[in-house]
C-alpha cells in the first residue's frame, strides 16, 4: 500500500472540517481503525530482533531506514492469540509524542475510510470491564462497525506486563 498517496489524500480531505481518515486493519476476525494522523508509515513484516527481559507484547526492535524502533504486538497487548506472521502481516509505524516512533504488528491492512464526526461514537457509554483499547466506534455507510483504537493505551507501558 502506498502510504504517501494515502497521506496526500488525508491532507486534501482535512480541508473539509469534521471528517477524519482511518486505516482499517484486521486482528483476527475484528476490524480496527487507526487514525491516519498518527501513522508515519506501513512496512512489510521484517526480521525483528528480540530484546531480553522485556514483556511478551514487546516483540523486539527493527531497523527502519537506519533508525532503531521498538515493535509491539497488538494481539499480545490486547490479550489475543500470538501473531502468526503471514504475507499480509504488516508493521504500522506510529508517531507518538513522548516515546518517539514505534511499530505495531497487525494481521492485515485493508483500506482507508473517511468518517464524518457524526459517524463516530464514543465508547464511554458502553463501558467495558478491564483494559479498554478502543476509544470510539465508527459506523460506516454499509453498516459495518469499526473499533477505533485508543493509541495512547497501546503506547502506554503495560504494568502487568
Amino acid at each position, binding site marked *: 500500500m502506498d502510504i504517501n498517496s494515502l497521506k496526500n489524500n488525508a491532507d486534501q480531505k482535512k480541508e473539509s472540517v469534521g471528517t477524519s481518515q482511518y486505516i482499517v486493519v484486521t486482528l483476527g476476525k475484528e476490524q480496527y481503525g487507526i487514525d491516519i494522523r498518527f501513522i508515519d508509515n506501513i512496512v512489510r513484516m521484517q*526480521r525483528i*530482533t*528480540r*530484546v*531480553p*527481559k*522485556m514483556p511478551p507484547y*514487546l516483540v*523486539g*526492535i*527493527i*531497523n527502519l531506514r*537506519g*533508525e*532503531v*524502533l*521498538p515493535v509491539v504486538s497488538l494481539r499480545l497487548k490486547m490479550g489475543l492469540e500470538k501473531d502468526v506472521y503471514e504475507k499480509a502481516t504488516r508493521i504500522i509505524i506510529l508517531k*507518538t509524542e*513522548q*516515546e*518517539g*516512533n*514505534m511499530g505495531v504488528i497487525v494481521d492485515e491492512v485493508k483500506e482507508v475510510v473517511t468518517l464524518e464526526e457524526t459517524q463516530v461514537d464514543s465508547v464511554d457509554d458502553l463501558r467495558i470491564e478491564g483494559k479498554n483499547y478502543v476509544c470510539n466506534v465508527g459506523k460506516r455507510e454499509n453498516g459495518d462497525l469499526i473499533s477505533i483504537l485508543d493509541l495512547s493505551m497501546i*503506547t502506554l*507501558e503495560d504494568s502487568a506486563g
Partner: protein
Amino acid sequence: MDVSQYLDIFLDETKEHLQNLSDQIMALEANPEDSNTINEIFRAAHTLKGMAGTMGYKRMQTLTHDMENVFSEVRSGKLKANSDMIDILFNCLDALDEYTQNIQNTADEGTNDNEPLIKRLNDLLKGQSQTAEKAEPAQAETEKADSSKKAENAAPENTASSATGEEKWYGIHLDSSQIHVIEEARKQNMECYGINVVVQDSCLLKAARAFLVFKAVEEKGEIIVSNPSAQDVEDERFDKDFTLLVLSKHPLEEVMKAAENVSEIANVTGGVLELEKTKDYKPTETPQAEGATQNAEPQTSQAPAAKNQEKTTDKKAAAGKPVVSRTVRVDIEKLDVLMNLVSELIIAKNSLVAATGQLRSSGENGVGEHIEYLERVTTSLHESVMKVRMVPIESVVNKFPRMIRDLSKKLNKNMELHMSGEETELDRTVVDEIGDPLMHLLRNSADHGLESAEVRAQRGKNPVGSIFLDAYQDGNNVVIEVRDDGNGIDIEAVKNKALERGTITPEQAAVMSDKDVINLLFLPSFSTAKQVTDVSGRGVGLDVVKSKIESLSGEVEVKSQLGQGSTWTIRLPLTLAIIQTLMVAVGGEKYAISLGSIQSLESIRPDEVKHVQNKEVINLRGSVLPLIRMEEVLDVESTRKPGDDLTVVIVKKGDKMAGLVIDELLGQLEIVIKPLGKYIKQCKFISGATILGDGEVALILDANALI
C-alpha cells in the same frame, strides 16, 4: 528593541571574554607588572562594555565600565595590582557571569545592581588618587578619556553640522524608474523623504543598529533607495552614516523619530526630497549641490581620520596579542547530522563487505579491491568527523586555577594547582559532562586531601600543598588524573565511619581489602569530613562523580597511600558514537561486546569449570573468575552441545574480571551505536543497538553491567 538575533553571538563572545579576563587576571596576579597582560585585560573589559552597551544591558555596562577604570589606572602604572584588587575583580567577574547567565535564561540581565562591588571598585580608584600624584596624567588615560568624550560629543557635533548632512540624499543617483516611482507615489498622497542616519562612533554592531533603523523606518514607509546599498549596510560596509530615501504617508518628523528611537544612533537628519533638485544635481553641479558636497566633505574626512586612529590602536593591540587559532563555530547539531551520515555510510560499507564475501568465494575479485578502498576511505572520513567533534578539555579545566585560588582563601590552606595536558581532546559531549566530576575531585583533594599548613610542616612537607591535574591519551581512552600530595585516604577512618553508619558489618569489615574500603567512598551519602563545609563534605560528591563517569562509559579508580597523597584516575572513551566490538552469537542471536572491555578469549574444557559457593568459576592462569552463562542471562536456548568446549570471553571492569560463556565468535566489527528509544526501558546489560551490514539489528551487551 529587537536584538534577539544577536543574542547568541553576544552570549558566546561574552563567555569567551569573561574566560579570557579570568585567565589574564590570574596571570596578572602572578606577574603584576606585565604590560601585555594588562593591555589584554583592558581590551577584553572594553569590548565587554561595548557589547553590553550595544545590547542594552545597562547594569552589565556600568559594572564593566568601572572595572575598566581600574584597569586603566593599572595600565598607567598609578595603581598596583594586589591580592585585594584581584579578589574584587574576581567578584566582579562572578557578577558578570551571573548577568550572562540571566541573559541566557531570560534574555534579561536581572535587577542586581551590584552596588557594593561598584563601590569597592571606586574605593580602589580613590585609594589610588590619594597615594599617586595626580599631576602627571598618564597617556593611556587621557587617550581613553578623549575617545569616550569624542563618542559623547559625537551627537552634538553632528547636530551642529546637520545643515550639511541634510543635503546628503541629493547625492544619491536616481534612475528614471525610481523617479517614476516617486512621482507616482506623490500622486497617491505619499511624500518622499531623504533621511541621513549617523551611527555613534562607539557603536560596535553597526550593522545591527542599521538593521534596526531599516526596520523601524520600514514600519513607517517604504525604503526605495539606500546608500550604501542595504546589502552593504548589512555587511557593515559603511563608515558611520547611511542615507535612505523613504516613501511614506506619515509626516517627516514621525519617520525621523522612528529612526532616532534606535539606540546608539548619533543623529538623524531628514527633509522632503525635491525631485527637481536631484534632477538638477545630476547633469551639472549647481552651486547649491556643490556646497552640499563641500560641506559634507569635512565630515567625511573627519570620519576616515577617526577610522585611521582606530586602526592604529587596533594594530598596536594586535602586535601584543598572541595569535588566535583560526576556528569556525559550528552548531553541534549540524555535526551530529554529519556524524549520522557517516554512520550510515559505515553501515552501507559493512553491507558491501558482507556482500563481497559471497562474491569472493565465487571468484569475482575486482570488486574486492574497490571495497577495500571504500573501507579505507570511510574509516578516514569517520576519523576526520570524529576529530571535528573533538575539543580540548581546556575549555573545562581552565576554570580550575581560579577555583583552587578561591578554595585556598576559603580553606586557609596554601595550595597550588599544576595542570598538564589541557590540550588533550575528547568528544564534545564528553567534555561538556566531565566538568562537574573533575570539580568534585579537585574540591575533594583541596578539602580532604591536603593537610593544614601546620600539619604539613610537622610532617616535613612543603607548606604549600600541590594538586595535579594531568590529562593524556592512552590508546582509545583518555585518562585524567587528579593527584594531591596530601594525607591520602585513611583506610581505618573510612572503615570506622562505615561501621558507625551501619554501611558494613564488623564481620565484613574484617575481611575487606583496602580497595573495597576505598570503594565505600563512592557510595551515596558517605563522607568522612568531620565538619560539613561548603566546599565538600555533604557526601554527594564522590557517588555523583562515579555515576557521571560511568554514564559516559568511563571508569574511576583511586590509589592512595596514607600520608603521601592520593590519585584519582578517570578513564574515558574517546568517543561514544562508534566503537569497535566483538560480535558473538548466543542461542542464534547476535550480540556485540565492546572491545574495550574484553581482556581475552578462551576455550575452556567443561571439566575445567569448578564450583565455588554454588557458582561456576574457572581458574585462568592463576586467577579465579566467575563464569556467566549468557544463555541464562538472555533467556535463550544455547546451541552448544553438552560436552563441547566452552567459548569464553574474558571481560574486565577495573580490576574485576569475569568470563562470559557464549556459543560462537563471529568476528570483529566497527559498529554505530543507536539508542533503543524511550519506549524500551533500558535493560541493565543492554547498552544500545546497532544495525549490521545486512540491515539486521543487533544488541550491544554492556559487559560492565554483567560483572
